[in-house]
């Protein structure tokens, strides 16, 4: 089960609203490589994963990603507070505004609503962990791109933190893949799928 901690993992305090920046950062809330998809991917892959170390890792990283989802929501919320008429008309934010006002909705920056089609749960040990490695890289690049677009240190500091987490998670999933391979057929890791074959 899950219970709530009334605080963020890392402080988010943004002095200057900037709806245009919010309209690209929202992609890490509900976009194809965002934190919602990340948490659902790992927390869903756990069920068929046969090895305790990797069940633990998927649980712990999936839980951390839920905390990151909350941080991204906080960034978007703070960037869109107290907006002027001129700011809501700004190209880049007006399309989001007409559908959601300043509510935080899981969508990609391109306008596509959150879709589970962007995450994979294949029920195969090597396949799921390889997907996770790719997922961390895709999220890392999205954060690189947000850093290219942000001139606000209050925002960039939080994005840097989240980006670094993707690198650490990539390392841990790589190690998990190594641990899994140790437990599999040493001559041919593709001989069976231990997530299904008993």
């Amino acid at each position: 089960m899950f219970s709530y901690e009334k605080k963020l993992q890392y402080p988010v305090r943004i002095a200057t609203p900037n709806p245009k920046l919010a309209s690209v950062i929202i992609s890490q809330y509900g976009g194809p490589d965002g934190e919602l998809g990340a948490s659902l991917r790992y927390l869903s892959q756990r069920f068929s994963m046969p090895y305790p170390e990797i069940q633990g890792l998927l649980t712990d990283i999936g839980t951390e990603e839920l905390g990151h989802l909350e941080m991204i929501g906080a960034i978007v919320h703070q960037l869109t507070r107290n907006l002027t008429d001129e700011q809501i008309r700004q190209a880049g934010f007006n399309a989001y505004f007409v559908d959601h006002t300043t509510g935080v909705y899981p969508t990609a920056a391109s306008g596509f609503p959150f879709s589970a089609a962007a995450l994979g749960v294949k029920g195969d040990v090597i396949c799921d962990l390889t997907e996770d490695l790719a997922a961390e890289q895709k999220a890392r690049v999205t954060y690189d791109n947000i850093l290219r677009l942000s001139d606000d240190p209050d925002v960039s500091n939080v994005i840097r933190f989240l980006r670094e987490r993707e690198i650490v998670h990539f390392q841990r999933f790589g190690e998990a893949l190594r641990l899994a391979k140790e437990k599999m057929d040493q001559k041919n890791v593709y001989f069976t799928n231990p997530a299904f074959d008993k």
Partner: protein
Amino acid sequence: MYPRTNSAAPGGCEDASGTLPQCAPLAVPYVPFQQNSPNRYTQQQALASGTLFPGLDLPFRVKGEMRRDLGGPLAELQALEFVLVELALYLDTHPDDAEAFALYQQYADMERQARSAYEAVNGPLTLAAAAQGDSWSAWLKGPWPWHPTEGGNS
């Protein structure tokens, strides 16, 4: 075939490198295993960097460093908890690193004390802690974490 003993014995890798098998089966990807007892930042440096481990601190340098001061009582607690999160992920894949587990226990103690001290001043962080307050309004009282004055630091 898949060595995972990552002792810091002579002949081990540098801190920013990990171990790989000498020979390995084809057609599967490899990430080097982080060695046991890696170098560590302080908890404040760890929170500011996004990792406890200097060897994994690989920033993107599109613009200059703009790291700000994360000071304040909430950031202190967040730093301790961040170390616990980071060590938990490390221990998931390095369950035999006794030194890291001892460190986890040590930080868990520090976090418990810091949490009690923080909650005594700023109100409950969990529903379980809400029972310690005078009334339910202690839980509902803001600012909630997404508010710009989060943690009472305006």
